[in-house]
């Protein structure tokens, strides 16, 4: 087990290095490097200054050399400065990551809480009216683009009804006398982003739960469990769902990374200060250092969740052992 995890971690690391190099290369292809930004800010700059600046920032070096410098810098903990915000990247990544993490986890938990009962209800009565109705909503959920849904939610709940804030992270200038007030206030800002981020995964998850439950319920051991006198509740949850969980684990783990990166649009839409919005604004603002780190984090997220899926596989399915 440990050697399996170590091996997979090593593989993950190699993939991260390759992908970050590709990202790095792509970034250099973007029009406008930092010096060009300076030129546009100061048109009277002399050519010698430009050459000197390029040399100073290492922009005259070939890409692979600049990449190596960047790698050695970040591995020693120096993530560089954000050009837009004039603060070290480390300082801005922390809170953004936390915010995105809260948003993604809440959304994942929420979609699972809704999707699992829906999927099971469908699987217990396949092709019934209930099944068709839930399926209709699932497909609607899968088909609706989240940015459109987000806008509609804002129009209805923030603009028309005024129940919830249209965007942001917390009420400005609010002080929190206790942690509970903080949770309540920030929770209010989370509702709309979480809903618009979850609708799609609810549709997807409950379709998966349905099919994997249907398959699980057809197994002989379900009949055995019933023949032992187990109640319907025990048969469904302990015997059928426990088995249906095996294929679900992968899908959930992989979905988490897609929720994490899918938060990009949602965060931008709701002005939620997460990594997604950071990526967006850093690319728009040519903020090289921030964009690179955000990319690496997003890529690592996907890879790590894949690893988590593999490990969880071994936990939920005793037939799989990692040697």
């Amino acid at each position, binding site marked *: 087990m440990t050697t399996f995890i170590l091996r997979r971690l090593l593989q993950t690391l190699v993939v991260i290095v390759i992908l970050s190099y590709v990202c790095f290369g792509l970034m250099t292809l973007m029009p406008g490097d930092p010096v060009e930004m300076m030129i546009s800010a100061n048109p009277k700059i002399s050519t010698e200054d430009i050459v000197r600046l390029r040399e100073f920032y290492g922009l005259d070096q070939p890409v692979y050399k600049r990449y190596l410098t960047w790698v050695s810098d970040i591995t020693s903990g120096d993530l560089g400065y954000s050009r837009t915000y004039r603060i070290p990247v480390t300082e801005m990544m922390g809170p953004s990551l936390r915010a995105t993490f809260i948003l993604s986890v809440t959304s994942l938990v929420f979609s699972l809480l809704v999707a699992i009962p829906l999927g099971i209800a469908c699987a217990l009565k396949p092709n019934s009216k209930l099944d068709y109705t839930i399926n209709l909503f699932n497909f609607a959920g899968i088909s609706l683009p989240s940015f459109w849904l987000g806008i509609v939610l804002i129009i209805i709940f923030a603009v028309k009804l005024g129940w919830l804030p249209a965007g942001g992270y917390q009420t400005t200038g609010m002080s929190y006398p206790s942690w509970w007030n903080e949770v309540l206030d920030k929770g209010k800002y989370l509702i709309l982003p979480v809903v618009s981020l979850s609708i799609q995964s609810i549709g997807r998850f409950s379709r998966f739960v349905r099919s994997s439950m249907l398959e699980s319920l057809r197994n*002989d*051991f379900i*009949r055995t469990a019933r*023949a*032992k006198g187990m109640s319907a509740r*025990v048969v469904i949850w302990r015997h059928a769902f426990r088995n249906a969980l095996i294929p679900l684990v992968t899908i959930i783990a992989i979905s988490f990374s897609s929720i994490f990166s899918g938060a990009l649009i949602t965060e931008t839409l709701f002005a939620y200060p997460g990594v997604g919005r950071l990526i967006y604004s850093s690319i728009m603002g040519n903020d090289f250092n921030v964009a690179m780190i955000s990319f690496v984090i997003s890529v690592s997220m996907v890879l790590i969740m894949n690893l988590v899926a593999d490990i969880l596989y071994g936990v939920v399915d005793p*037939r799989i052992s990692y040697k």
Partner: protein
Amino acid sequence: MNPVVDVKDLETTFFLKSGPFRAVNRISYSINQAETLGIVGESGCGKSVTSFSLMRLIDRPGKVTHGQALLNGKDLFKLSEPEIESVRGGQMAMIFQEPMTALNPVLTIGFQMNEQIEKHLKLTKKDAKDRAIEMLQLVGIPSAAERYDNYSHQLSGGMRQRAMIAMALSCNPQFLIADEPTTALDVTIQAQILELFQNLQEKLKMSVQFITHDLGVISEVSDKVLVMYAGQMCETGPTQEVLTSPRHPYTAALIESRPQMGHRIDRLKTIEGSVPAPHELPVGCPFSNRCSRVKSECWTIKPAFVNITPTRKIACFNPL
């Protein structure tokens, strides 16, 4: 003495899109204490549906549409869902054909035994574990305490079937249904399991309904036999009598179509065709279209199931 199991006029119908299909058509039999009834017939003749009907495990679109099944005088078909749940796995247990798939792959053998024991015998977790290990030892599983923590994929086919038997017997059932318990096992294991089975039955004085299509197995384990064809009863009687002097042409054909030790023949006899689909069922005797002794009335009138000796019954106009 009243029989432990008394089934009267059992009828199970599947309401399919193409029309209702009577999988079991007015079957009656009874089993005394410590007695074994063997039910034989080809695939698709309603043996398993009969058992599942008694267990009340027939799902939609199937339904028990007629009859009663008394277990110690209580009609199983009249019990409420919680009541039948407390009978299933307790007083009445079942062993299945495929030990490979009949055990839950993600739960340990011990866990699967425990949940049943805790429910029916109302034991604590610890006592239930002791009971489970005791049962595993009883069915001849070596190092039972370790096997208790194993998953089904860690056991061989024979061991799994032993574990299934241990599970079925763990709550002292008075009535056991064995649905082709040895079909999926190889011959040496089959013999071991049958021997185990007979020993346990003698020890525990259970009534057993043993379903198989293997006449050799029937002659070894059962006291009396019921031959079924297309959901209906053909012949019943004491096993030895029926197997040595069958009266119904279907029983005779079944016996003839198996190889016999010491008789070298080029070609085994077969019964032409297969069990008819529900909508192709002949009007008269269901076997008429495959029967070698068919008479004109067989095509139009269904023969009644009547006594020919005090212990034997057949449904045939032209018995052997």
